[in-house]
């Protein structure tokens, strides 16, 4: 018999290293001779999109097109240490460092521009769309490109902005666990409707919804991509993935028997990006890389209970495990 059920899984997640361990990101922004800006930062692009969203942050501060940001994050020889690409910390932590580095460079650009423009002061000068100009008399202007050339001639390049950001966390008391171990926290809620086949033990997800708190979305499309991916990974955790561990040996150590979800297993996910800016985040942003997968498994388990009235206390809920639980319930 096929039975339907609905379930919710809601979670919170403290991002960053945590517990008072110095969580430091460093970044460098360099004005190049062609007016482009190179951002040097030890933030690894693992596929999550850090290169893109951090380039967006830099482009925003420098007010230049995204294509004019050269993002360098591959080589220990030419990038400062910005910590690990983990703990959902890069957007918040390194994002802040990049923003600070670019603000520093922006200030230096304006200071140099007022000299080149032969003004008395940098007051009232602004940088927008690749141009530095006087707000009260826009004809007093110089492009970033022209400025870079002037500076090159005067041997004043490279112009470098630097930024460093350290998250605020406090070590917890050893006996009571009291303290402020993480910041910021990110919230995530999943809801699913499942259909449980009580004969085969198979679980079909017929509807899935996710609401993800992001602080402020830097790139909404990439956040959706993270949500979809986190959902798939959470689904695998809920009902498929099993190493078949026995006496320390993995039976399932290839893709023939360690089953990760395929395109046929992952249903469409309805996604809500919830914005509530975090005042200490870059543009209000928080990290979401991990939170996006947390609510899936509990939502599925609660939906199974709603469908068949049995609490499954172990993941993955393989057909075998589900049928056994149903049988036990009947016996009781």
């Amino acid at each position, binding site marked *: 018999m096929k039975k339907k059920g609905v379930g919710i899984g809601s979670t919170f997640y403290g991002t960053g290293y945590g517990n008072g361990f110095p969580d430091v990101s460093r970044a460098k922004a360099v004005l190049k001779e062609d007016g482009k800006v190179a951002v040097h930062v030890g933030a690894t692009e693992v*596929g999550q999109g850090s290169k893109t*969203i951090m380039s967006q942050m830099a482009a*925003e501060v420098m007010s230049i097109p995204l294509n004019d940001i050269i993002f360098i*994050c591959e080589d220990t020889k030419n990038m400062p240490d910005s910590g690990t690409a983990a703990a959902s910390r890069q957007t918040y932590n390194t994002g802040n460092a990049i923003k600070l580095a670019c603000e520093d460079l922006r200030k230096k650009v304006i200071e140099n521009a007022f000299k080149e423009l032969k003004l008395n002061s940098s007051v009232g000068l602004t940088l927008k769309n690749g141009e530095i100009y006087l707000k009260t008399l826009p004809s007093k202007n110089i492009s970033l490109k022209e400025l870079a050339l002037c500076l090159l001639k005067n041997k004043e390049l490279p112009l470098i902005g630097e930024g460093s950001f350290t998250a605020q966390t406090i070590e917890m008391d050893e006996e009571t666990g009291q303290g402020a*171990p993480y910041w910021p926290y990110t919230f995530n809620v999943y809801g699913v409707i499942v259909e449980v086949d009580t004969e085969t033990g198979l679980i079909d997800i017929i509807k899935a919804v*996710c609401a993800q708190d992001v602080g402020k979305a830097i790139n909404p499309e990439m956040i959706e991509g993270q949500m979809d991916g986190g959902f798939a990974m959470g689904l695998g955790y809920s009902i498929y993935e099993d190493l078949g561990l026995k006496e320390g040996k993995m039976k399932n150590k290839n893709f023939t028997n360690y089953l990760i979800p395929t395109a046929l297993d992952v249903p469409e996910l309805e996604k809500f990006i919830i914005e509530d800016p*975090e*005042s200490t*985040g870059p543009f209000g942003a928080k990290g979401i890389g991990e939170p996006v997968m947390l609510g899936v498994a509990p939502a599925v388990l609660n939906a199974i209970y709603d469908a068949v009235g049995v*609490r499954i206390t172990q993941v993955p809920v393989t057909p075998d495990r589900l049928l056994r639980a149903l049988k036990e319930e009947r016996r009781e």
Partner: protein
Amino acid sequence: MKREIVGKRAIRVDGHSKVLGKAEYPQDIQKQSMYHGKTLRSKKPHAYFKLNIDKAKNLKGVIAILTAKDVPYNHHGVLFKDHEIFCTNKVRRVGDPIAFVVAENEKIAKQAVEFIEIEYDEIPGVFDPIKAMEQSAPIVHKESNILYHYKIRKGNIENAFKQCEVIVENEYRTGMVDHAFLQPESGIAYMDENTVVVCASSQYPHFDQIEIAEALNIPTENVRVINPAIGGAFGGREDITLQIHIALATKLVGKPVKTTYSREESFLAHGKRHSMIMKYKTGANRQGKLVAMEANIIGDTGAYASWAPNVLRKAGVHATGPYEIPNVKVDSYAVYTNNPFAGAMRGFGAAQGPIAYEQQIDEIGRKLSIDPITIRKINGFKVGSETATGQILEASVPYIQCIESVGKALGLEQKEGIR
């Protein structure tokens, strides 16, 4: 402030090279006259061993075979240096690296690995973290198998449970899982004058740089780590795998050395998500307000610590879920066993707890005839809430908004309320 680029759509900056198939992953890097490496790994979970490499060494095309005695500092690890780069005389898990063959080509390297004679003297292993906590259990490292214990003591749970209208108790279990990123580990190392250059996918190249320099006993500035395109990570590229092996090899033989793992070796080489056993007792008053919670969480970190203390700390800190609970007692433990080692994986100790605390709260709601949305709204974090560690959530706490969005999309809002 009006923003031009942040918050807007932007084409992925590395998209173009990836759709063209031009993005360069470590396996795509070729060097003139490079050698190939292959790792010999333990087939036993807990054993002493003796090694004889003579036969393998004499195989035509074998350049070198690295073992523990070739490593200046034979230890690594993200928190504790409890991994050996190559096991000296004892293996603690299936998959522990024992030797690294460098050969003219991959085929010979593979063959030579088979030619290495290894004699295991098996000792009893421990595979269940609860058993591993007992006094009589086989010891995986030097002292106790319990390597970390985190505690929360807030309020008075004994008194609080007495006041509860409803109490729910249950035990939950989660298994170890793999990151299964699509790109198996691969790397190439070469010498650039007296600098060792290592190209491999890593989540944290600067930390790899330090660990490689320590193992080789050379200054950090003589190690350069290049991170090419990375085919997913999810925490599984936090602990170092092949980087030190190829760095040692290239320093020894002077030529570029490359190694690429098969899918199976990838499973054997990197860490897993901690399996956890979570005992929960949760109590609420008649109105559905959570009053007390007690949780005992045991995390199996397998043969090595990796990030276990941080993972089990995170499990403990997040044990309440996103709910205000005035009286909380949490004990979380990280325990060594002879299972595959567990480390960082997306969620990092906060992915297991929800399976427990979210079922607990549903059960509480069910017993009090309060629907899942309402019970969460009654207890959920809001601006000003205090967490189990006494931290005030002073801003950006849109939990209720998230719950409401999901409830509405599922058509649950009409059903809300106390039945």
